[in-house]
């Protein structure tokens, strides 16, 4: 059994560049969701998203390199740089065989759209090669490797809402196996017009009177989406600065369709149990849950039922973070970062947007930030299509 130390965190988040700014955003209970001004949402039902603002890529990336990178790559390279700066103060430089495992839910959709625009305008033979090079989902991970000379494993995982947690699971598994001493994991996402409009048209986004994300709330009407990047430095030979990744569980709800959540909460409960057992713990050791809850009717109900099924009446307090930065934000990695900050700061964050649960829901959703003794925090990710990944984040190395 191994616990993998998190020794540095870099964040390019809606409303917060850098882990300290993100910490403040969470402490203030401030949502970064706001009106979409990047593209025209007229004619759509939803008009809100958590977008990156005030990000200056030149602060992180040399101008010559910048031209070769799309938005996703810029977010990811900046987050990686911030993460390495964050741990430089605490540890030694990372070795050459450092691995990279990133998650992204949609990947470079905007680059594909831009490419096809040029293809239509100029012809199939004259579209820009630079756009094609950036149209692969692993371009951000590749840029990070080139930037820092990381020659270990380099993979990009896409599993909808669970992408970043699935990537972290792989990175942790490789370090446990001994493939590398250290790894950089995390996720990256970009909100663009195409994803937004398609999600809106299938009715997935919050609309009407309650446009904000309201995870677990009885008035929730759909998700609000977000973007950005987060990078976590994992190291097997240094003490943690934030906490340890101590267990993972994976399962799938076989009642789900290919693009929606199912209704059998047992699979989510099984994934949570598997993660807890992987960490050699029991449900009673879990002091809090950082929930997947994304404000959709179906997924949130599935999750609270799964929590109640596993923990009974002794469920620990539950924090829903997606009302801060949206679903898909940083490929799902910001939720993991929030849980690590909770463990590091011994603080439970508030769940903005939650006022009252639906009838029958017994779990406690934390409404106001409070100090708490947190040894182990469970992190859930339930994705459309039925995939579930859960992780346990621990304060101590053993």
């Amino acid at each position: 059994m191994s616990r993998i130390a998190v020794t540095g965190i870099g964040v390019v988040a809606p409303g917060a560049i850098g882990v300290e700014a993100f910490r403040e955003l969470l402490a203030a209970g401030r949502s970064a969701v706001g009106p979409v001004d990047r593209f025209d949402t007229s004619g759509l039902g939803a008009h809100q998203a958590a977008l990156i603002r005030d990000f200056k890529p030149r602060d992180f990336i040399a101008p010559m390199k910048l031209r070769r990178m799309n938005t996703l790559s810029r977010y990811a390279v900046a987050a990686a740089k911030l993460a390495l700066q964050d741990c430089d103060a605490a540890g030694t430089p990372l070795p050459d065989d450092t691995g990279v495992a990133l998650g992204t839910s949609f990947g470079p959709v905007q680059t594909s759209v831009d490419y096809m625009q040029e293809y239509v305008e100029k012809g199939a033979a004259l579209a820009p090669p630079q756009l094609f090079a950036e149209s692969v989902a692993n371009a951000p991970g590749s840029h990070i490797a080139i930037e820092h000379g990381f020659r270990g494993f380099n993979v990009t995982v896409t599993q909808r809402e669970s992408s970043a947690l699935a990537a972290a699971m792989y990175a942790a598994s490789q370090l446990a196996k001994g493939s590398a001493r250290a790894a950089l994991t995390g996720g990256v996402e970009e909100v663009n017009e195409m994803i937004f409009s398609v999600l809106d048209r299938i009715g997935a986004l919050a609309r009407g009177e309650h446009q904000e994300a309201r995870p677990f709330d009885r008035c929730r009407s759909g998700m609000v989406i977000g973007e950005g990047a987060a990078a976590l430095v994992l190291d097997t030979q240094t003490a943690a600065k934030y906490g340890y990744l101590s267990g993972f569980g994976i399962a799938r709800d076989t009642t789900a369709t290919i693009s929606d959540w199912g209704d059998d909460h047992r699979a989510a409960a099984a994934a949570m149990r598997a993660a807890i057992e992987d960490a050699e713990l029991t449900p009673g050791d879990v002091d809090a849950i950082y929930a997947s809850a994304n404000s959709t009717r179906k997924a949130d109900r599935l999750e609270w039922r799964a929590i109640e099924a596993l923990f009974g009446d002794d469920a620990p307090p539950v924090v829903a973070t997606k009302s801060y930065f949206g679903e898909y934000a940083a490929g799902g990695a910001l939720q993991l970062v929030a849980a690590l900050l909770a463990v590091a700061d011994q603080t439970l964050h508030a769940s903005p947007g939650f006022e009252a649960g639906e009838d029958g829901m017994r779990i406690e959703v934390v409404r106001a930030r409070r100090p708490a003794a947190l040894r182990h925090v469970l992190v859930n990710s339930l994705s459309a299509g039925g995939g579930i990944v859960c992780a346990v984040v621990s304060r101590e190395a053993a």
Partner: protein
Amino acid sequence: MRKPDPSTRIAVTGAGIICSIGRNKAEVWQSIRESRAGIGELTRFPGETFPTTIAAEVEPEVEPMLPVAAREAKRLSRTDRLAVIAAAEALRQANDGTATAPLPLERAIVSTGSSTGGLLEGEDYYFRRLVRGRRRAPASRVLQQPTSGPSDAVAQVFRLGGGVISNATACASAGAAIGMAADYLRSRHADVAVAGGSDALCRLTYSGFNVLQAVDPEPCSPFGAERKGITLGEGAAYLILERWDDAIARGATILAELCGYGASCDAHHPTAPAEDGRGAETAMRGALCEGGVGAEAIDYVNAHGTGTMLNDSAETKAIMAAVGSATPVSSSKSYFGHTLGASGAIEAVISVLALQEQLAPPTLRLQKPADDCTLDYIPHTPRPMRMTNVLSNTFGFGGSNVSILFRRAET
């Protein structure tokens, strides 16, 4: 977390494949035996003009091969459909024959590599929007665009409950997906893995490799002096992986052993491989190390062998450094082109079949090897030979490299 236990042996108990030279293992192997490539005129995109005009296509209508109702099939992208067809063959084999107990599907994970996902359908949507504007384009067809589509589709069709993982590491995707799945069996995060890859041809990749000037106007000629680049292909393949002892207990027929894999990154360039082949060498050495064998134990290397100037010379250097210069090497891409995100899975199935049949597939059209390609590339015709350990190489954009070691099943 539990670490992948290196002493846990992984059995391959099923394999499925669809590509331009066949719709299943039997058809594919027949083509391999007969040195019959599946490369012809590009027909998929009528009305579009590209600098090159050939491809390794699977037949246009694959719906009749799908084990699902038409209504359900409508929701699947072409990449999803190819995936479901290959996974169906693999699952059928794992449950057939000597097996006395079925695969425990409730603990089966799906791990798929794909670089395009539902991009083909996404392109239709882009085109309609560019011409007609947003409100008139049907959104339903792009819901399967994410590269996680094929894993979700396979999991849903076969009711698999162990979890879904998708790998979008460009052309190394399926190799990474298979390695990842083996690790999760070794760490007991799952009991069965349906691991593979799928990619359908689409305009963006066809055009993109052309604008990079990486496509050979003639059928590709890996390792050849006159090679000019890749031939684009499409297809899907899956392996069924189980822990060895579980497979024995179930009475399953073991096709081969997956002994290990290595993964690395060149950290050199977004699209070009490092010219010295160092990253590829590291991946192969990683596979040897995990499999606990020395370089001399490798009997055959199923190369990445794309047919580009850079890959084939760098890979040759890497093979010489990691395995030596006496080991026969070939590129099956000379049969079915470069199937991008699926290539690692398609060529893993070819490697398993080669071990079973004790027949190494050749490199077709290799009239004259390049001066810097000095290995034995098994030109023109398949070669019967004794093979115990085989390496399958898969490299991709971003400098990601994966090499998988398969061993002949003990008989």
